[in-house]
């Protein structure tokens, strides 16, 4: 039979090995969550196909619906996040068959607005790009939800 000291090395060494595996697995999870070195928030550059659009300085002040059943509706932006969806408790209650009950959210972080999709069925698009994580919204960039389009204005 094997010596006692060797058995003890086996005993603790194996546990160490198991936990090293878990440590390695968690590093992969972390890299996946935070996307490695770069920052978390991706941004979409304003569309190149819209030349001549002046980039306005300063924080956006209103949210305007530019297409869909609610065209013309304006919401004044404050510090509170804006919930968009068909649910009654949304800030902007959509009457759009292609929108989910809790569809998307606009959040103010340090004067800049980010759009997030809340797991909607048909998705939220910022400038033709599907919103997966929080994305920075520049004034004038169209946000499309179902048949509704929105944009921020200064």
């Amino acid at each position, binding site marked *: 039979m094997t010596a006692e000291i060797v058995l*003890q090395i086996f005993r603790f060494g194996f*546990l160490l090995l198991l936990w090293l595996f878990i440590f390695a*697995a968690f590093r992969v*999870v972390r890299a996946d969550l935070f996307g490695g070195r770069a920052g978390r928030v991706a941004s979409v550059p304003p569309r190149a196909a819209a030349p001549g659009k002046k980039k306005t300085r300063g924080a956006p002040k209103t949210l305007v619906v530019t297409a869909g059943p609610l065209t013309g509706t304006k919401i004044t932006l404050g510090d509170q996040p804006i919930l968009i969806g068909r649910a009654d408790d949304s800030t902007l209650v959509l009457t759009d068959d292609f929108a989910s009950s809790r569809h998307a959210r606009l959040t103010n972080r340090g004067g800049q607005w980010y759009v997030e999709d809340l797991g909607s069925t048909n998705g939220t698009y910022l400038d033709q790009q599907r919103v997966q994580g929080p994305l920075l919204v520049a004034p004038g960039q169209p946000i499309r939800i179902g048949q509704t389009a929105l944009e921020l204005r200064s």
Partner: protein
Amino acid sequence: MTSGPTTDPRAAAPGAANPPKRRNTELALLGFAVLITLVAQAIVDLTVTGSLTTELATFGVWFAALWTVAHLVVRRWAPYADPLLLPAVALLVGLGLSFIHRLDLAAQQADSALSREDAPVQLVWATLGLVLFVGVLLVLRDHRLLSRFAYTLALVGLVLLAIPALLPSSLSEVNGAKIWIRVAGFSIQPGEFAKICLTVFFAAYLVDKRDVLALASRRVMGLELPRGRDLGPVLVAWGLSILVLVFERDLGSSLLLFGIFVVMLYVATERASWLLIGLGLFAGGALVAYQLFGHVQQRVDSWLDPFEYYDGSGFQVAQALFGLGTGGLFGAGLGGGRPDQVPVAKSDFIAAAVGEELGLFGLVAVIIVYLVLVERGLRTSLICRDAFGKLLAAGLSFAIAWQVFVVLGGVTGLLPLTGLTTPFLAYGGSSLVANFVLVAVLVRISDAARRPAAPTGPPKPALGDAPTEVVQT
């Protein structure tokens, strides 16, 4: 214009650098898992018999070949799949094989005339599971195909569930549970496959109906209650699990099916009231089952006080508790305990063997590996782009989590014993093969979910934005 690279792989623009596939991470972790398995086997051999055998080398080559094949297939046919699913499964299967081998050795020491070994059999089952894993990945190129066969799969699932109940006991009964098909020396537990078929069906059905189930509701005391007629499906699922319980005397499958359905209903509708309704139905069913069935009473009694029934129904749990107690924090060391003292330690009670030889630290490590597996499944569900994939991934991951919870709860005395198997770890061919299929489906969904959107792209109708453009300029 804000600078900075696009970090979210799914948000990558068509022209941007390819998002990471992380296949090499997977390969490295798979290598690590194989290494841990081989170390475990070597420690077991050295501790129990004092020498290494040539069988270890054969085993090592076979086991490593299995995962190499799996990795290559994923690399070729599901390149964006989650890098952690496969390594977690490899480690669990490897640890399971090591413990089965360890219990084989214990059985041989107790009775040297005994030459039956279960570990090689389990390795063959794992190989078969891997063949099916590869098959599913090759045949199922898009998980959404499954939703087309939802009702067919539901029928298949129900038939699989019903077969053991209809067969005569001689062909279907083992240790009191009528959940087997025994043909020509083989025994198959069809319920394990029914689990997957029915989860696929639930996902497809709920994607269809979730708006009705979620929106048409009345508010009663701050709770959104569904309309009476929408209760239909949950009542059917409940009735089905009761039928399984009555005709097959199988507490585990019954609990598993009902749990999966209720949680998927909750995920699909975001209404907590479904959980409460499910819990209520479960409590009612449990109460009735306790009154009507002797075997349920027996299970509950031996759960409440295993030591009072030490000479009878409580023996197994009591022995498992002794084993866990002997293991303590760091365990007795691989090969250093007496896990063979627990009846059926290889299948139902393998967690007790892990707890005895690896201790609390080892058992928690194994649970965390399950946690990683489930977390990756749920993450797949979160980032998946289509509702069916979302629900299916959530349902399958929950099935693993629920099964682990119920089994470990039973072994540690938290819950009554149910007779489910620990996925991937426990001895048992059907369970292993079925769970390989389950993971193959998860890998397929995660490949679709993590694949950059560019090729299929944000839909072209974005041109429908034209009015916006006009307003802008």
